[in-house]
């Protein structure tokens, strides 16, 4: 709810408050491995492996590479199949033709610099010759061996449910008549406890997410329910958010919406993570501990059962 934010506004207006930057001596955290791995129907599994760092440590973006963990042994297995992932660094990826780099950047939601280069990162995925891809309805185990640590996790790819319909409606204010809001109809399965995550893409841009990026079916269980599909937020833009235009699409946009079914644990991870992000800096909010499904580390091993729907503008 927006009460908390409002109360902050109230405070700033009402109170003769005084702020000063202070030095807080923090204990060093225990070294942890952070896993960010996904498996999606018809897509090979991929894993980012990083290290945590001290809260006040300087985060050096130009050397993002040093936060990535190299040389891990990662095995993804289902009941019937198993594969060891291999490591690719962005230096390698940057040798690819621009078109493929763009496709990858789109997929990962990464910005490209002026030379069309992906930031310095590394990713573990299947070997080039492999045809290992996620399959609907299967469970997938992840096992990582690195720095004498063993990390494990399990996820599944649920049955996908796509939008049964997408349409647009004009912006409520006639002042913005070039903008539209995108709406969709989801036919939720009968059983309660279905969780969704969605991604939006406009024309040929990268996929973006909104906050919250996940939804549950508490409101519309077993029903065909209508939902707004706001355009995701471009995290790489420095522009201030204008709430009058935020989330709206252009009339002429081709709208791509990927709707993925996810498990409860996968949902909990994003829900707690996004809750923590939105509370950050809020003096009234309490902290949120992010729920991870990784045994022996932090992060997520998440399955997506996805369908991408497209809305073409009416000429």
């Amino acid at each position, binding site marked *: 709810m*927006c*009460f*908390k934010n*409002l109360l902050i*506004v*109230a*405070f700033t*207006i*009402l109170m*003769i*408050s*005084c*702020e*000063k*930057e*202070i*030095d*807080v001596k*923090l*204990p060093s*955290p225990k070294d*942890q491995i*952070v896993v*960010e791995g996904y498996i999606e129907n018809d897509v090979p599994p991929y894993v980012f492996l*990083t290290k*945590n*760092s001290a*809260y006040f440590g300087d985060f050096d*973006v130009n050397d993002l590479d040093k936060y990535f963990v190299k040389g891990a042994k990662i095995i993804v297995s289902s009941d019937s199949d198993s594969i060891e992932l291999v490591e690719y660094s962005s230096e390698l990826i940057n040798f690819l033709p621009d078109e493929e780099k763009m496709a990858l950047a789109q997929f990962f939601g*990464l*910005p490209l610099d002026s030379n069309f280069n992906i*930031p310095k990162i590394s990713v573990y995925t299947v070997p080039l010759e492999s045809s290992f891809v996620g399959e609907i309805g299967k469970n997938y185990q992840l096992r990582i061996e690195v720095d004498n640590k063993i990390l494990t996790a399990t996820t599944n790819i649920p049955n996908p449910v796509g939008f049964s319909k997408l349409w647009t409606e004009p912006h*409520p*204010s006639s002042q913005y008549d070039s903008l539209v809001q995108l709406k969709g109809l989801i036919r939720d399965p009968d059983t*309660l406890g279905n969780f969704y995550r969605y991604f939006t893409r406009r024309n040929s841009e990268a996929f973006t*997410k909104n906050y919250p990026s996940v939804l549950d079916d*508490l409101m519309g269980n077993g029903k065909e329910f209508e939902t707004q599909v706001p355009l995701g937020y471009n*995290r790489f833009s*420095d522009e201030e958010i204008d*709430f*009058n235009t935020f989330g709206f699409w252009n009339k002429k946009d081709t709208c791509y919406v990927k709707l993925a079914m996810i498990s*409860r644990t996968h949902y*909990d991870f994003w829900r707690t*993570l996004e*809750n923590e*992000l939105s509370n*950050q*800096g*809020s*003096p*009234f*909010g*309490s*902290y*949120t*501990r*992010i*729920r991870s499904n990784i045994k022996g580390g932090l*992060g*997520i091993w998440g399955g997506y059962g996805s369908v991408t729907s497209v809305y073409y503008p009416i000429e």
Partner: protein
Amino acid sequence: MKIGAQEQKFTVSGYVYDASNGESLIGASVYVTHSDGRKTGAATNVYGFYSIQLNEGNYELVYSYVGFATQIVKINLKSNLKQNVHLIEGQELSEVVVTAERKDENVKSTDMGKVEMGIEMIKSIPALMGEVDVIKAIQLLPGVQAAGEGNSGIYVRGGGPDQNLVLLDDAIVYNPGHMFGFFSVFNPDAVKGASLTKGGMPASYGGRISSVIDVSMKEGNNKRFQMDGGIGLISSRLTLQGPIQKDKSSFLIAARRTYAFDIAQPILKKTDFGGTNYNFYDLNLKANYTFSDKDRIFLSGYFGRDVFIYNNAVNKTNVRMPWGNATTTLRWNHLFSDKLFMNTTLVFNDYQFSFTARQLEFQMLVKSGVRDFNAKIDLDHYASSKHKLKYGYNYTYHIFTPNTGSMNSGDTDFKIDEGKKYAHEMAWYVQDDWDINDRFRLSTGFRLSMFQQVGPYKYLPDGAYGKDSVLYKRGEAVKTWWGPEPRIAMRYAINGKQSIKAGFSMNYQYVHLVSSSNSTLPTDMWVPSSKWVEPQWGLQYSLGYFRNFKDNDYELSAEIYYKDMKNQIEFSESFYKELNEEIEMGYVFGRGYSYGMELFAKKSKGKFNGWLGYTLSYTWRKFDMLNQGNKFPARYDRRHDISVNLVYEINKKLSLGGTWVYATGNAFTLPIEKYIVDFMLITGYGDRNAYRIPAFHRMDLSLTYVPNKNPNKRFKSEYNFSIYNVYNRKNTYFIYYKTEGNLLLGNLTTKAVSVSLFPIIPSFTWNFKF
């Protein structure tokens, strides 16, 4: 006096009043000294009634009360006697002894951890922005911890802010704070006095596990018409009172309103925030009628609201947020005999919060609250000279409204409805104060409480993600609890000046305050015990040593306590609130325990008086689901807490008051690590409440000037000049982290920021009485 044989006992009973206005005096002392030096006595109850039993004979009855001239009445007791007494306020008669304290009361009573505060004492304490405040005064007592600067939430012996029973004329006040908790709802002009019981709660009180703050409203002057008022920096007050029928009935109307933001309106108008406003007001009403010495009725009411309006022309946002309490109490005092006093009370109380927001086409309305209908009967039975009994019954019907409301954007409607919850709460109690001999007094009590959640209620067995729901019909029992609550207190008098007291109490609490934030806010919600939430219960053991010096000039006490609290509630560390999901789904349950020592020294007479309190305490929580199951300090765990409150009367017209408080900083949880997920920087936290904000300390001073002390003049006025936070200490109110920039754009920074609220603030208040 006759010796041997069966002595015939007679009863002396009556009321003790303030002669100037006819207000009954609570806790006035009445006693006789026998020829062998023994004393028999009693204190008046909350309606000013007393009753003592004596053998036939001649006696000098001594009536005394704080700040009043002691009166001695000689009697020859041959039959039961009615003796009403009107005491005269001390300052007006210089030749008579004025009692500053009920004589040896702290040593003699069995009350442990109970402090009574008259309004005069409360008014002598320097106040923030000149706003005299009952709760702020209570926060200065040992064993009581303030939540922090400008917060009316109080933490008694390691208990939470919802574990205090706050009563205004027998009505529960669910949210005692105004202005996000910076001030309390009690208008000092309408208040007669307040008492705090932090340990050894008598059986007549229940429903909360930590303490009782019992505030009594004035009854209204039944001698003559009177007007009181004051003009202050942020608010003004006006109180009218007087007889409806002299000596028989009277009324009181008191009003208070803030205007600081009304004054700022012309400035705000020119900004994008035009129309933004904040104010609060209170209205207290009281009337009483005395039918005879046997029957009297009182009707009292309180209505208060905070209203916050926020307008923002830039993003076309309009928010209106009113909240507040309303209470009505009807009481009937009846004397069945000179030994049996009955009080019957009917109470209605209501706390409401609402929030309306509008932005362009988007509209949102949310409401929450709690409403009670309460009836109770209390009997004071002065059974014999050795036994004083008290028994009664209490019934409450609760209606809880968690967030309900609606949102709509254009023609899309959306309803939020977590469903109201209904409950019956009942209690029966009996209590006996037994004077075994001159040295030993034993108070035993037993309270049996019951709480029943009733329908209509829709129960989802597996939380929101359950299978089939169970529907309960209106009035159908959903869940019932019984709570046996034994209470024991005893006093052993070493001699007339020293005593040792010990106490044990067990309490149940069936309603809980849910706060997802670190401060007491109007958005906090009360929820009942239900299918999801078990009642809280607590045990407290305490032991104390009490001593008086120099004929009551100085008093000293030392108490130690241990308190165990079960079924304590916190939010899960991974809590997020889903729309339409019951908030209870986010709870985790565990144990709390607290132990400590409280030292209190007080000087109550002379030009220079005041008190000094020191508390050493440890407060822990242990929850399976929090902090990996390890114990952690409660947020308000205070190792050291010191408060000093002194008043110096410079001369007849001028007095200087000062307070100084020191407290170990609150415990809080720090972020310790960051990591990357989805190319965003994510924060990870360290052990729960493992760190401390800097210690809190502050000094306040006040100077009161009374230009004309001529008692014959009806118009009296008083100027109060006070300075809050004299040495401008920047106490940390909270610490937060500012993260700015973007990881992938390479401009990300994180800083810790300490926010402090009040710098040095001088204020001025003018009070008058007519």
